[in-house]
């Protein structure tokens, strides 16, 4: 099984290729991405993701009220909290769906507060959705092939000009191969030519994660990836997450299921009423008085 894992060097190679490709596109964003690339290679001990004093208000409602936390390189960090604790809003502020009212988001030490989702994804921070958002009219393979960064053929001119299309096709072949490998890894390769809309709920979750990985991310934000997934598939998904983490990916996991978080995450962040209530290992959280009081209540 481990032979199927796209190993880190493969991923790095692919990323380099894509970076080179990015540099020669004549797209207006080419400048931006050059800046992004420069930022990417700054060697720093900064954590991949840091949130500081994040505040988000919707009218009179304060959904996130000064949340601060860090996600360590190569960790699987869990984010829990009761309904309305502000987990999803925090997520949306990090990924750029919402602009924070106050506070900052740092990606590898760089201030990325309020950047649009597509810019965050290009920097290497990608997310999945709580309710799987597969592109149902596209095949599973197309869903995956959509994701990689720096695709030459995304320039309309390159896509149609005979002399330039050769490079596009070559890159497409490489992307197709990587898509197949990723499908192998998640064991949904038998569904490759199926329309994503025909997949079961669990398969959609696998597809979402596979698609997110195709962007070559460094940090993956998983929004309840196990909600509505049967126990067998849940095991499979968690197994894949652990394997990927060993390959150097960093995960931030929002999950309702306490056991999942406690058993899998080495670091747990508990949110309550919009701010961080406690942080620590699963055991520390389990025994934290404030957490028991505020969240676990009579459960533990």
């Amino acid at each position, binding site marked *: 099984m481990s032979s199927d894992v796209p190993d880190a060097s493969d991923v790095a190679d692919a990323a380099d290729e894509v970076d080179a490709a990015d540099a020669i596109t004549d797209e*207006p964003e080419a400048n931006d991405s050059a800046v992004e690339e420069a930022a990417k290679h700054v060697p720093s001990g900064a954590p991949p993701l840091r949130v500081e004093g994040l505040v988000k208000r919707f009218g009179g409602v304060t959904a996130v009220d000064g949340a601060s936390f860090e996600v360590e390189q190569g960790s699987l960090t869990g984010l829990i909290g009761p309904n309305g604790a502000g987990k999803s809003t925090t997520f949306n502020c990090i990924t750029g769906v919402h602009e924070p009212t106050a506070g900052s988001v740092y990606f590898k030490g760089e201030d990325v507060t309020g950047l649009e989702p*597509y810019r965050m994804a290009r920097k290497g921070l990608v997310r999945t959705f709580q309710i799987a958002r597969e592109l149902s009219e596209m095949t599973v393979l197309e869903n995956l092939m959509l994701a990689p960064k720096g695709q030459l053929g995304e320039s309309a001119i390159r*896509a149609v000009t005979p002399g330039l299309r050769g490079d596009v*096709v070559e890159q497409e072949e490489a992307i197709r*191969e990587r898509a197949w490998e990723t499908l192998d890894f998640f064991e949904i390769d038998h569904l490759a030519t199926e329309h994503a809309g025909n997949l079961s709920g669990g398969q959609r979750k696998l597809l979402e994660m596979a698609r997110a990985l195709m962007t070559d991310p460094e940090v993956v934000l998983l929004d309840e990836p196990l909600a509505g997934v049967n126990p067998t598939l849940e095991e499979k998904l968690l197994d894949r997450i652990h394997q990927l983490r060993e390959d150097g990916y960093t995960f931030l996991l929002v999950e309702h299921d306490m056991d999942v978080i406690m058993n899998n995450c080495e670091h747990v962040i508990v949110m309550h009423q919009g701010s961080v209530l406690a942080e620590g290992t699963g055991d520390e959280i389990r025994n934290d008085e404030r957490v028991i009081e505020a969240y676990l209540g009579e459960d533990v």
Partner: protein
Amino acid sequence: MTDASSSGDRDAPADERPESATAALLDAAKRSDLGLVLGTLLVVYLAATVLTFADGLNSVVGLMRTLTFLGLVYALAALALNLQWGYAGLFNIGVAGFMALGVYTMGIVVRSPDPAFGPPGFGLPLPVGIAAGMLVAAVVGLLAALPALRLKADYLAIVTLGISEIVRLFLQSSAFDTFLRDSLGVGTGGGRGMGMPRNPVRDLFLVDGQAGTPTAFGELVFGVFGEDALGVSNSILIDWGYIAVLAAFVIAFYVLLERLGRSPFGRTLKAIREDELVADSLGKNVDLIKVKVFVIGCALMGLVGILWFGSQGNVSPTPQFMPLLTFYVFIAVIIGGSGSNTGSVLGGIVFATVLFEGPRRVGASVRDVIDAETPPSFADAVAALDPTAFLAFATDNVAPLQFILLGLILVFIMHRRPDGILGDRIETAAAVDLSERPSGGETDE
């Protein structure tokens, strides 16, 4: 043109031999895109022949010309709209306005500066005019898209409909005409419209476009098919020459859009149509891509306007560029199946020939053989309780009744086949084959 068409053409005879020539033809037509389009045209031609063969070859060829011309221009417009609406889901209901911008700009740029011949222009060569027409349509499309695309889809529809009407009313306005004449020295002709520059295809047949002085090529064509040989009038022959140009444009549009569709660009468009947030979250600059595809589509619509109305001798803003035209183009795309380029070509041809021209032609032919007085009103026609009288009334009033027919057909399509003729097609959004795993890859455990 595509893999499907070439393989269809090749395989048809190789497979088991079909029972008859017609069966073989039908078989091939079903499997190849080109066959499907040509087969549809063939059926239309057969119907045209049945309707007019009594009037002689000239009428048959003349009707075929009219039908083919309309079919091809609607196919072009449908292809341009399919890029915006079918691929990217951008609801542009200002198609007529962008076509008007294209053809009017071309007219103004190319027309003679001498006011003696009507509204003056800049007197520049035709290719400059065509490029300018596309450019102006694209720029206005950009201006519309920048604010509207940032909002929800419905606003784009409202804005484009508004722009289309603003364009038409500006062109209609004599105040705008006067303003242009005073400021730039060119005019639109207001409500009276403007004459179009001579079609270069005409020069291919006639020296300086003058009737009676054919070129060597014209001599040859007129000699074989013309009045003295097969009896087809010269003007119809020249029109067929232009139809060949239109067919070339249809093929060019088709190849361009197929290539766009079968590329990462097309893949991103499909993703945007389905779920913008997903495309955004995967690193696609959704706003920029939407603006790009909208502008490309508008430029193509400008070109369609030039090819279509620029060849008609004279353009006027009303009724040619009423919003009705936009809805006709939409119907063509819906019939063919939005998202499919072959479907758009087919939809354009079927709409223009069967739904748009068909009822009038059939109605007129039927009216000729009915021996009855036309009742003065619909009530009289019904009250007469005489099917002949009713038919006489119906065939005499085909134009208004046609709208009822169109409505019924739309309801039928929406109900029975909401995806259109070819809407169930799976169009691959990649520059490589995705149907099976390329050899050399690992197999499943």
